[in-house]
């Protein structure tokens, strides 16, 4: 019996990275605490989120056990499928809240941009890995095209937040793949120069969000309301916070979407600067471990994919916290591992599963 148990234990943990897992569990636990407060002590949301977490951890275990080279083979078909679905959305998609983001597939409807979040870095990593021996400037150019096509489709939906996040993940891959500094500098200057044109291409509500960020009080009951109230929540938290379950902004309903995108306002109000420092430390711990895994990944594909996953995770966290504390425009990005919602949890844990797979399968590759 002990033998069987030990076998089961080894089967379960062989591809699990303990350090990464402990970081994830710590953040998840924090998330549940904040969620309990944000939902005014109701356990219904918390138990729902607990179920989401179990599913997400299951997905993580599954992907940790899939060897990276298998994923590599999956990359091109997944990317093509993603692009096809995006074209489908553009042609036949459902309009919800003025944006065409959803596609009906049989009984359910999906948001193909979610799939792109993982398919794109996977594809770029595959692409660079394939051309590893002879990386030329045109390869980078090709990668940029591969990036631009889905991003353009998503931006047209319009879903600027997702488009920017996918752009970021693609840029991380291209940067890590070794794009020369000279090109980077040139692109940076060109980018700055094209800002006015980009501005004119934005939708009114997108411009409004940016304007609101610069001066939230210009529209205190409209677009600025979220930012003003979440900033008040963060600021009134002070050094030690108002205490768990004691946030007035939270419990008197002043923070909109406080279980999802704005959950950080709840956390910052109740746990203060000290709590924020602890949260940043926990995130850094997770990112740091993921970077170590990235640095030690055996192949270029694994390195680029791991790097993209790691930095995308960071970007989500930064954009969300930056938005809640009023230094970034309001875009619909949840705080990874903390915000309520299954989709985000599953996709984040899927990424960590891939990281674990990369870390635990390299010995097998090398032997």
């Amino acid at each position: 019996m002990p033998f069987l148990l030990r076998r089961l234990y080894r089967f379960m943990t062989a591809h699990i990275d303990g350090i990464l897992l402990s970081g994830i569990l710590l953040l998840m636990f924090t998330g549940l605490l904040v969620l309990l407060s944000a939902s005014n002590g109701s356990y219904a949301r918390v138990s729902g989120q607990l179920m989401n977490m179990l599913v997400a951890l299951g997905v993580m275990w599954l992907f940790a056990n899939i060897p990276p080279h298998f994923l590599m083979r999956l990359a091109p078909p997944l990317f093509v499928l993603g692009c096809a679905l995006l074209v489908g959305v553009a042609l036949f998609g459902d309009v919800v809240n003025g944006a065409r983001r959803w596609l009906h597939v049989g009984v359910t409807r999906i948001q193909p941009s979610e799939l792109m979040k993982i398919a794109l870095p996977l594809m770029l990593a595959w692409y660079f890995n394939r051309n590893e021996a002879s990386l030329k400037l045109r390869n980078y150019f090709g990668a940029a095209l591969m990036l631009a096509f889905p991003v353009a489709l998503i931006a047209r939906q319009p879903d600027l937040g997702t488009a920017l996040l996918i752009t970021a993940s693609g840029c991380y891959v291209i940067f890590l793949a070794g794009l020369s500094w000279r090109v980077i500098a040139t692109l940076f200057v060109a980018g700055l120069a094209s800002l006015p044109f980009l501005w004119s291409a934005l939708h009114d509500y997108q411009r409004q969000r940016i304007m609101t960020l610069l001066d939230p009080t210009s529209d205190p009951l409209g677009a600025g309301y979220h930012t003003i109230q979440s900033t008040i929540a963060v600021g009134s938290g002070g050094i030690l916070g108002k205490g768990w379950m004691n946030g007035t902004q939270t419990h008197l309903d002043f923070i909109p979407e406080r279980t999802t995108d704005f959950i950080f306002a709840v956390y910052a109000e109740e746990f203060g600067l000290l709590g924020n420092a602890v949260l940043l430390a926990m995130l850094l711990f997770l990112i740091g471990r993921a970077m170590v895994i990235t640095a030690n990944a055996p192949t270029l594909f694994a390195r680029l994919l791991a790097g993209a996953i790691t930095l995308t995770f960071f970007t989500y966290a930064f954009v969300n916290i930056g938005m809640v504390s009023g230094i970034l425009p309001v875009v619909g990005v949840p705080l990874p591992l903390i915000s309520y919602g299954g989709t985000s949890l599953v996709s984040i844990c899927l990424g960590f599963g891939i990281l674990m797979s990369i870390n635990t399968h390299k010995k097998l590759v090398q032997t």
Partner: protein
Amino acid sequence: MSELSINPGIEIRDSERELDRFRRRLAILGVFVLTLFGLLFLRFFYLQVIQHGHYSTLAEANRISILPIAPHRGIIVDRNGIQLAHNYSAYTLEITPSKVQSLEDTIDGLAAIIEITPRDRRRFRKLLEESKSFESLPIRTRLSDEEIARFAVHRYRFPGVEAKARLFRQYPQGEMFSHVVGHIGRINQREVEQLEKDGRLANYRGSDYIGKTGLEQSYEKFLHGTTGVEEVEVDSGGRAVRTLSRTPPVSGNNLVLNLDAKLQEVAYNAFGDRKGALVAIDPATGGILAFVSKPGFDPNLFVDGIDPQSWSELNGSPDKPLLNRASAGTYPPGSTFKPFMALAALFYGKRTPQQTISDPGYFMFGGHRFRDDKVDGHGLVDMYKSIVVSCDTYYYVLANDLGIDPIARFMALFGFGSRTGIDIAGEATGVLPSTEWKARRFSRPEQKKWYAGETISVGIGQGYNNYTPLQLASAMATLANDGVMFRPHIVNYIEDIRTRDKQLVEPTPLRNLGIKQEHIQVIKQALVGVNKEGTGARAFADAPYTSGGKTGTAQVIAIKQGEKYVESRVAEQHRDHALFIAYAPADKPTIALAVVSENSGFGARAAAPVARKVLDYHLLGKLPAATDGKN
């Protein structure tokens, strides 16, 4: 290994260089991550440490709302506890214009479930013009329970419309007390500014009403009370979640009047359908016993803002119901002036009571014939007779002998031509003619001069003489009280309803006129004679008490030289006013009064019976028989 490449050394170095470069790039991104997290931490530090105070204040301001609790307004009762102004609780339907898309649609929608009259709409439109759009304004008041239930069902259809439980002011006695009690009304912008200047505005947070006229206005400070404060925690929708602290409001003080509501009623009804005024005073204290101005108006119309149509009806009526005749209306005193003229004669030593004149029925002065009422004259007239039969000639001569300025100085002692200082606003001064007054009053030099001929008619209470019924009553009371004058006051005491403390409105002896008692007694005897055997005798026939009185008739238009005044030939609004002043009982007066009955002819016929009914009720508790009404 060797199968992988022809030149393994270079290949390995190359891939190691690649790896190094990758790790360098990764390290750069690591620095990038740290930098941005550092930026976040700085932002937290800024918000949570440096600006913490600011955001705490904002969070508290979000959270805590300070709600004023309006106090109950004090009630007003007469000397016997009969309520003249009280409060009752009822529902109003209120609209906050700023929260409503289309006012017309909303009101039409409401009208489909609750009765809204055109009058309500007009009143609402007028309120709308006077108020700010975020104020909640009543479209209907005094809703029935059924109407409330019907509104509750349809409530969701009317955002910005609320049914609110409110305290209403009601004046149960209606028009009878409209001028003395006055009324409250919605606070207007001018009143807000005044309150702000007095530093009382904070106490009116939560109050919609303020005293506008009468006692409601002059005792506003006492009636209003102190506003309470409730600190409540509110959510983002503005709904109160819980109460943090509560300072209860302090109700306003009650007013207990000297006024006798029953007496007032008797007096009001005694006028029949005549217009006029009556003021009755307790001579020993100056307390006002009755204060009638007829016609009155329904003060309840004004409480929630009067609709423009009702307003113009009241304001444009030829009967002038809005005019407070008792203290803001002025009338020539007519013959009621004579007793005071006689007293002046004694005072200045110009006459003795026994001195007589021979009355041929007129007095010639400067080629002008001043006529007596009695064409043939009264024959030999002494002071007593001059009052009892109301002989004009006696006073033409007397006025001429005294001169205008000595008359004015003496009459000023009795308060003629100056405000009495009664405790409601809007008192008129009237006109006490003198050379100085005329010089002040007119601008052209020939008008500024006083002509000796003008003094003659002043002697019989005509000419420039013009006094309020209140001044007349006060002068009568002073005479009845043997020359000691009190400031007339309507309120007896102010009562704190919690402590039951009474704050008396002290009877203030304004002055002792310093007139010899023997002189006063001469006049008082003559006044008793009027009611016993003179012009008041018919009205006071069979009275079981002795009273003093004096009739008077005030000309509204001048009669041409040589013409006779014939009542039936004169348009009603130009007919003479009937006056009567009286006091009783003669030995120890408890009431003194002045009556003016407009356009009613002789004082003896129209005004004295009113006085009789009032004195009967006051002294005997006797209500006039219903059939007497028109007499």
